């Protein structure tokens, strides 16, 4: 059983040099989002760096999940949503007219708050994305299924029942399966919308360990309600409040020496 590691004292953290020098990957410029006539995001500017974990924190309804969904255009599915401003990934405007949303979502994977495996076998859950993007070779799919499950630290638990239903797995296993499904199509970015909020502490630890492992290969943006979680796993943290980006900095800075009073009040638990 994995030991639960308590967050180390933030004061003792030393900023690793890689954090500052990492290349920018996602850039949002004055992004505004309207539900009908109400403005849910108010002129957000942010630059998210490659192969790091960036956490979005803030009280419920502050727009952090809505903002996260701008990066893979999941907001397109909601009626009456209008987005202005620019959202660039790797320098390309993802809201440009000629953008293929399917290609975009292949590059930007997503893990949801509630684990949502398909009612298919474990194997087919992972193979689905591959088949969707044109992989037909059985041995290639087999290989990716195994590597993705290994990547999501699930292989040893499910290798003997790959063809049984994914719905038979525990909540934590299902969520790791969803992560495996997301990484199987090799995205550049993985968006995580409170991926551990519905899980028990032990399953949460596994997901967090996994996220730290995944950032070697992927850029991760995670929305979380759990501030300890943000300190444990993220390199940068953005604090949102009522549709505005209040403060965005190194996680250590946000939690130890925030520049804004609102941020300090929130991270110290005075509201939220």
């Amino acid at each position, binding site marked *: 059983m994995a030991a639960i590691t308590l967050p180390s004292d933030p004061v003792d953290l030393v900023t690793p040099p890689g954090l500052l020098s990492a290349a920018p990957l996602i850039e949002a410029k004055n992004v505004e989002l309207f539900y009908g006539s109400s403005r849910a995001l108010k002129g957000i500017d942010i630059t998210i760096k490659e192969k790091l974990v960036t956490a979005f924190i803030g009280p419920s309804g502050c727009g952090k999940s809505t903002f996260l969904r701008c990066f*893979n255009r*999941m907001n397109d*599915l909601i*009626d009456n949503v209008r987005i202005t401003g620019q959202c660039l990934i790797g320098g390309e405007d993802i809201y440009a007219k000629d953008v293929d949303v*399917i*290609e*975009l*979502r*292949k590059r930007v*994977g*997503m893990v*949801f708050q*509630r684990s*949502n*495996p*398909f*009612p*298919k076998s474990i194997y087919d859950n992972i193979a*689905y*994305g591959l088949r*969707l*993007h044109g992989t037909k070779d059985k041995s290639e799919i087999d290989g990716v299924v195994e590597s993705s499950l290994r990547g999501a630290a699930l292989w040893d638990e499910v290798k003997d029942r790959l063809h049984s*239903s994914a*719905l038979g797995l525990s909540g934590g296993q299902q969520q790791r399966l*969803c992560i495996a*499904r*997301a990484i199987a*199509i090799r995205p550049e970015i993985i968006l995580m919308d409170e991926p551990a909020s519905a899980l028990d502490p032990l399953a949460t630890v596994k997901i967090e360990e996994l996220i730290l492992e995944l950032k070697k290969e992927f850029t991760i943006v995670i929305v979380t309600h759990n501030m300890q979680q943000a300190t444990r796993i993220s390199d940068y943290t953005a604090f949102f409040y009522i549709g505005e980006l209040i403060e965005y900095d190194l996680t250590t800075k946000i939690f130890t020496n925030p520049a804004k009073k609102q941020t300090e009040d929130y991270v110290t638990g005075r509201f939220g």
Partner: protein
Amino acid sequence: MGIHRGHNARPLEWIAEKFIFTVSLSAIAMVFLIFLFVGREALPVFLGDTDSALVQTVIPSKDMEKTAPDRLARYLGMSVSELKTKDADTLRTMMEIREEAANEVPAAVRDDKDASANTTEWKYLLKAHQWTGYTKPEHIWQPVSAIHKYNLVPLVIGSLKTTLIGLAFAVPLSLAAAIYVSQLAPPSWKEWIKPGIEFLSGIPSVVLGAFAFLVLAGFLQDIFGYRYRLNAFVAGIALGLTAVPLIFSIAEDALTSVPRSYVQAALALGASKWQTAWQVVLPAAAPGVFAAIVLGFGRCIGETMVVLIASGNASVVSWDIFDSTRSLTATIAAEMAEAVNGGHHYRVLFMLGTMLFAVTFATNLLGDAVMHRLKKQR
């Protein structure tokens, strides 16, 4: 008292619960009773107690006392217990009527080799028979001809043919509509299409039948150029129209109740809306969609008015969809009024009813079993 109050604590709830229980039980009892009563009328055919032979050995009325009660009962078409309730004069009169009836049979018919055949026997009901005047064995349903011909095959074929055409028309149409409305349509469209299709179920089938008879038959004839204006194809399409709202409505419910999270997962993986609907939502809703099709089958095979009006009502053995045809249900509806109560025609019609009941029951049972299997597979 304290907590030990049992159902006295909430008497109204207790009464309501028992009431609902009784109602649900009575629904089951009702189905059972219907089957029992329909089956009872048909029982003599199943037991071989009916005799439709035109020329029978006549028992002279003077021999009444000498005849064994069970033989007499069968001869007069009643049960032994019924026989005992009649007095001797009544029985004698009945026997005299039989004698007269036998004498009234025209000589030409009396000499027919088939005149003494009991046509309600299984071999006549199911197998082809070479009737006098025919060049080869044939399946014929002619209950009111001089010699009553009760072959079920043309009716069964008629029912299956129209039902299959109806389903072939209705299933793709209603599933496509259900997928469109539940997954692809913008909400404002959905508000119009869904009630629109479901409104179809409010049209009485006799009106739909008239529509098929007056409009559809001619319209389709112009397109397909078939010979007989009223035929299995026209009836099948009209049947399909009656089944569309049913299949659509159940399938749409099943598709809509597939969790949004599956849809989001698929879209986030880069599936198009169409791929999501076809590859994720439809398989997830398979049990419900299957139930919709099974119920659609039951609706089609049980529908009477539409086929009665639009099928042409010719009981011919043919798998050609453009031939006129006649279904089990239409036969019952058309002939029940003229069948003599308790006579062999009446019995055979009830047997058709029993068969229909059994077929729909078996289909629903099978559908249920398949549905459970599909649900378990996830």
